[in-house]
């Protein structure tokens, strides 16, 4: 028997204090293996203005390339205290900052490995469906071989690639529309 999907609706402007009350912006407590990184996402609307009432969620593999999930059955280490999930609302300047470890590579169903990436969900007032995108790391030698980036026209791939600032923080602007519109994925 087939059941009809429950449709999506906007998160609206008033989630603060309820779901984001229990947010996680620090994914990796001390002792978690891997290269520690700071990631700052910044949300922009179609005019380029920052979005101060959005929510970012991140989901990633650990530094060994293992997802903390029963459907990842590979014999790779799980790290105690690292689930790989984070959530934070945006500040008045449209940013959310996450502290985590750089994810390892995970396989691609047709063979080979994907470049290290963080899966990102975006919610906001005026956004009726969860928007999904990815964050890749500038300069990673695996980028040129990544099967997902190959699905994206070359001129738009930069919208998915975080750059490192002079403090070492990885920064990725997310544009909901306009000339710099981020590539979103139907997952």
């Amino acid at each position, binding site marked *: *028997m*087939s*059941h*009809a*999907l*429950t*449709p*999506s*609706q*906007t*998160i*609206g*402007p*008033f*989630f*603060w*204090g*309820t*779901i984001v009350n*229990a947010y996680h912006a620090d994914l990796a407590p001390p002792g978690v293996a891997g290269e520690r990184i700071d990631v700052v996402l910044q949300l922009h*609307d*179609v005019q380029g*203005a920052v*979005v101060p009432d959005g929510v970012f969620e991140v*989901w990633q*593999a650990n530094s060994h390339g293992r*997802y903390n*999930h029963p*459907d*990842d059955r*590979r014999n790779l280490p799980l790290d105690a205290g690292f*689930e*790989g999930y984070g959530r934070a609302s945006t500040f008045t300047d449209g940013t959310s900052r996450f502290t985590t470890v750089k994810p390892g590579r995970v*396989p691609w*169903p*047709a063979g080979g490995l*994907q470049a290290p*990436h963080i*899966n990102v*969900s975006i*919610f*906001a*007032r*005026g*956004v*009726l469906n*969860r*928007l*999904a995108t*990815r964050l890749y790391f500038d300069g990673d030698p695996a980028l040129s071989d990544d099967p*997902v980036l190959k699905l*994206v026209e070359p001129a738009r791939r930069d919208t998915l690639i975080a750059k490192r600032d002079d403090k070492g923080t990885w920064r990725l602007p997310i544009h*909901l*529309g306009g000339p710099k*519109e981020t*590539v*979103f*994925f*139907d*997952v």
Partner: protein
Amino acid sequence: MKEETYRRPTAGDHPPNLSPDYKSTTGRAPAKPAIALPHSLSEITGPLLADERLDAHENDLTKQRMAEPLGERIIVQGRVLDQDGKPVPGALVEIWQCNAAGRYHHPGDQHDAPLDPNFYGGGRVRADAEGQYKFITIKPGAYPWKNHHNAWRPAHIHFSLFGPAFATRLITQMYFPNDPLLAYDPIYKSVPAGARERLQASFEMDLTQPEWALGYRFDIVLRGRNATPME
């Protein structure tokens, strides 16, 4: 290794990103189509939040403060299922809502209606092995918003679910049956007719408790898995 994948929504299940009657969408809707991703481990895994500790009264929004909130006490109960009707056991369900007067406990809500010091409006619960969840709360009020002249949101409760995978993440809103404001609400009506009705809870005398509270049922259906592909 062959991974199981999740079924894609069909046209008409979800609202279009650009729904101009809901004015905020015009500044926030992507213009380009999303690129379909084949499902890899990145999409078929997702946060289960299995270690998240829930406090005793998180599913009873009438018992989170010093005294009972004002308003009409209600029970909201249902199941988290996939498209095959199978329960999603252990699913974390999060809700948030305004108070009975139509005001959110939120600094951005400046509607001229009273705050209720005994109502916070946030709740969480973990569905059981059969996907069953239950909240006790008060019926939220309608409230005005500035989308258009004399715009009022119908009473609603926001729901957030993760399901088993990144692909199954869903945020939605539950409405009350036969609310006359539904006919005027561009957020509800952003969902195509034929699907939007799924967002209305049903009133259930079976869930209603004598001398205590009305009961509403709201079942939530998340994406199901594709049949295992042939090797």
